[in-house]
C-alpha cells in the first residue's frame, strides 16, 4: 500500500461512516439528495473495484474513466489508486460533441487498455470504441452493473510514492491536450497543502467541537480542480462533500446556493466564470423568493481559482449575496495548474482577499507600481508547500518583488512531466535559473510578488509587445467585449507584416441581434476608437459571427488558433481592417 493509499484509508478506519459524500440534483425546483456514501462504504466499494481490476488488468495499466458526475466515479478512481492501476479521467460527450474525438486521441496517446463507465453509458461507448479506425485494443466495461468481488478479496499493492497515480489531461490555452503524469507523492503532498489552507491552526481550533467542514461544489471531476480540489480534498481534510453535476449547476445555478445553505457548507470553490454565471442567472430575483430560509452564514471560505480572478466579480457577488450572509472576507483567491497537481498559491481560510491597484503603464513595462487610479488586480495568496520564483523568461534571472516575470514552481506537488513527451517535459519541467537553482516547472504564466503575495498578470506566450509596451491580450479583449451590446467574446494577438512589423489584431465576435441596423464595419470603427481612447493602442479589428473564435473544450478562447485560422482565411470575416497581404502572411509575397 502506498503512503497515499494508507493516508486516505486511515480516514475511513478512524471515521467510519460518520463523514460522507452526497450528490444532489434539482427536481422540480427543489434540492433532492440522489446518492450518499459514508467514508467506510466508499472505501469498501473502492477495494471491490481494486480487486476486480487486479483480475482483469496488469499492474500499472492505464484505465480510462468515462463516468457521469457521481459517486461511482470516485469509488472507481480510488479503486485504481488502491490497486496500482493508472486512472485517466475523461469527459462523456454530454455538452461537447468534440469530447469523443478528444477521448480517442487520449486512448492512443496513453495506450489505454480498458475504458470503464456505468451501465447507462457502456453500450454507446463500446459501440463507439468498436467503430474507431484503427480500433483500439481497449474495450468498455460497466462497473455498477456486474457483481464486483468481495472487498475483502482486495490485497494492497506495494507501491512507492514515486508510482504514477493518474494522468490528468489538460486543455491548455493554446496547445493540444497533454497528459500530466501525477504520482502518489504529488497527490498526497497537494492534498496536505490544500488542507493547510482550508483549516489553518486557528480554524482547526475553532472547529474542534465539530471537526467536519462540509464542502459544496459542482465542478467536473475530469478537471484538476474538480478531481483534487472537490472530490479528494474532503477525504484528506476529514470533511463532508455535497455536490451536483456541472450540467445541473449550469441549468439551475441557484442549486449551488441551496446546497451551501441546506447542508451548512463551510467552504465552496469555483473558477471566476462560475461565480459570474451565478450572478448573471440571479438577475433581479429576490433571494428570499428562491428560498425563504436561504442562509449562507455558514460559509467561511470561497475559493476562486483556475482562471484569472476578477476584482469586479468578487465585489459584485459579495454585494449581491450580502443579504443572505455572504461576507467579502470569505473570498480565497488561489493560483494553480495541473502540472503542479492543483494548488500552488492560496489564501488561507479567514485571511480575506488582497486587491491591489496598480499603474497600467508601469504594468505594461513589467513593473508593479501601486496607483490609486490604476487597474485592480486580485492577489492569489502565498505559496503553499511550493517554492515559487518570478524569473525573467529570456535570461532566466530571478526577479525581485514588484517585477513581472514568468512564474516558476518547484516542490513535491510538481508532476513528473507530460506522458510520452520527453521533449516538452524537459522544456517545461526541468528549467534552471541563471544562478543555478532548479529544477523548476515553467508555468508559462506571468506575475509578480508584492509583500509575499502572488499576483498573476497573464500568460507569457500570449503577451503582446508593441513599441516597447507589454500588453496583455486580456486587456484589449476586455475593451472589445464591453465596447457595445453587439460585441461578444474576442481574441487579441499580433500579426507580423512582410517587413516584420507587428500589428495588433482583435478578432471580435458580433451579436447580430444587437447590431440594430449598423454594419460590421461601423462596429469595427467603434471598437477601434474605444481601444485608442482607453489603451492608446491602434488595433486592427476583424469582425466575425457568433462562436467563430476557436475555444478549448473548457470554453477558453484560443488566441494562437484564432491567428492561424485568420491567416488561413477560415474565419469567415464579416469585416476586416487588414489588407489582404497581411492576412495571408509572408507566404503570399504580394
Amino acid at each position: 500500500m502506498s503512503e497515499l493509499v494508507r493516508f486516505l484509508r486511515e480516514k475511513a478506519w478512524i471515521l467510519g461512516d460518520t463523514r460522507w459524500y452526497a450528490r444532489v440534483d434539482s427536481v422540480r425546483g427543489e434540492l433532492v439528495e440522489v446518492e450518499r456514501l459514508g467514508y467506510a462504504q466508499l472505501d469498501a466499494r473502492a477495494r471491490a473495484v481494486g480487486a476486480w481490476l487486479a483480475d482483469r488488468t496488469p499492474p500499472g495499466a492505464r484505465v480510462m474513466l468515462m463516468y457521469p458526475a457521481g459517486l461511482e466515479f470516485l469509488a472507481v478512481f480510488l479503486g485504481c489508486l488502491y490497486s496500482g492501476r493508472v486512472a485517466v479521467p475523461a469527459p462523456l460527450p454530454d455538452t461537447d460533441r468534440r469530447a469523443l474525438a478528444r477521448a480517442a486521441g487520449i486512448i492512443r496517446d496513453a495506450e489505454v487498455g480498458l475504458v470503464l463507465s456505468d451501465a447507462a453509458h457502456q453500450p454507446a461507448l463500446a459501440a463507439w470504441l468498436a467503430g474507431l479506425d484503427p480500433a483500439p485494443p481497449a474495450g468498455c466495461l460497466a462497473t455498477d452493473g456486474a457483481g464486483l468481488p468481495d472487498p475483502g478479496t482486495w490485497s494492497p499493492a506495494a507501491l512507492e510514492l514515486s508510482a504514477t497515480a493518474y494522468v490528468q489531461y489538460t486543455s491548455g490555452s493554446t496547445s493540444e491536450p497533454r497528459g500530466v503524469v501525477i504520482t502518489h507523492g504529488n497527490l498526497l503532498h497537494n492534498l496536505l497543502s490544500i488542507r493547510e489552507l482550508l483549516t489553518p491552526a486557528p480554524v482547526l481550533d475553532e472547529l474542534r467541537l465539530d471537526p467536519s467542514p462540509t464542502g459544496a461544489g459542482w465542478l467536473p471531476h475530469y478537471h484538476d480542480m474538480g478531481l483534487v480540489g472537490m472530490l479528494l480534498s474532503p477525504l484528506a481534510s476529514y470533511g463532508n462533500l455535497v455536490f451536483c453535476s456541472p450540467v445541473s449547476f449550469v441549468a439551475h445555478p441557484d442549486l449551488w446556493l441551496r446546497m451551501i445553505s441546506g447542508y451548512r457548507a463551510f467552504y465552496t470553490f469555483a473558477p471566476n466564470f462560475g461565480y459570474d454565471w451565478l450572478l448573471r442567472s440571479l438577475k433581479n430575483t429576490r433571494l428570499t423568493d428562491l428560498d425563504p430560509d436561504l442562509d449562507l452564514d455558514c460559509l467561511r471560505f470561497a475559493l476562486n481559482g483556475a482562471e484569472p480572478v476578477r476584482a469586479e466579480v468578487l465585489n459584485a457577488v459579495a454585494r449581491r449575496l450580502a443579504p443572505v450572509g455572504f461576507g467579502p472576507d470569505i473570498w480565497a483567491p488561489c493560483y494553480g495548474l495541473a502540472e503542479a497537481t492543483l494548488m500552488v498559491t492560496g489564501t488561507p481560510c479567514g485571511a480575506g482577499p488582497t486587491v491591489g491597484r496598480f499603474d497600467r503603464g508601469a504594468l505594461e513595462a513589467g513593473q508593479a507600481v501601486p496607483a490609486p487610479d490604476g487597474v485592480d488586480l486580485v492577489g492569489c495568496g502565498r505559496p503553499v508547500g511550493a517554492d515559487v520564483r518570478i524569473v525573467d523568461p529570456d535570461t532566466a534571472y530571478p526577479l525581485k518583488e514588484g517585477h513581472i516575470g514568468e512564474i516558476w514552481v518547484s516542490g513535491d506537488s510538481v508532476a513528473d512531466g507530460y506522458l510520452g513527451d520527453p521533449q516538452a517535459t524537459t522544456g517545461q519541467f526541468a528549467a534552471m535559473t541563471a544562478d543555478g537553482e532548479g529544477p523548476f516547472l515553467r508555468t508559462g504564466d506571468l506575475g509578480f510578488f508584492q509583500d509575499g503575495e502572488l499576483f498573476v498578470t497573464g500568460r507569457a506566450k500570449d503577451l503582446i509587445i508593441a513599441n516597447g509596451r507589454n500588453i496583455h491580450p486580456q486587456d484589449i479583449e476586455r475593451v472589445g467585449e464591453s465596447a457595445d451590446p453587439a460585441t461578444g467574446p474576442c481574441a487579441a494577438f499580433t500579426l507580423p507584416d512582410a517587413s516584420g512589423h507587428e500589428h495588433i489584431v482583435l478578432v471580435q465576435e458580433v451579436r447580430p441581434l444587437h447590431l440594430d441596423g449598423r454594419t460590421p464595419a461601423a462596429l469595427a470603427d467603434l471598437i477601434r476608437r474605444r481601444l485608442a481612447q482607453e489603451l492608446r493602442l491602434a488595433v486592427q479589428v476583424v469582425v466575425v459571427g457568433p462562436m467563430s473564435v476557436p475555444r478549448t473544450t473548457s470554453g477558453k478562447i484560443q488566441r494562437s488558433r484564432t491567428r492561424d485560422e485568420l491567416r488561413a482565411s477560415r474565419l469567415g470575416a464579416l469585416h476586416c481592417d487588414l489588407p489582404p497581404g497581411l492576412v495571408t502572411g509572408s507566404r503570399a509575397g504580394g
Partner: protein
Amino acid sequence: MKRSEILDELKGMLAEFGDVDPELVDEQTAFVADLGLDSLVLVRLTVVAEERFGVRVPDEVAWELHTVGSVVSYVEEALSGRLGAGGE
C-alpha cells in the same frame, strides 16, 4: 400541446434565460448565429426545456437543433409519439 403553444413557451424561456426580446424571435431564428447565445445559456435552455415540456432531448439531438423551429418540431413529435406509445 399545439405548435403555437410550444413556440410561445420557448420564446418565454429565451426571454427568461437569454434576455431575448420575444418580438425578435420566429421559427427561423438561430440560437447562436442570430441570437449569439453562449454555451452556458444553451445548456440551461436545453435542460429547462426538457423539464417543462416533459421530453428527453438526447445530446446528439440537441447538437443538431440550431433554430427555434427545429426545437418546436422535435418537441411536437416527441410529445405526440409519447402519447401514442402510452395508449392514451
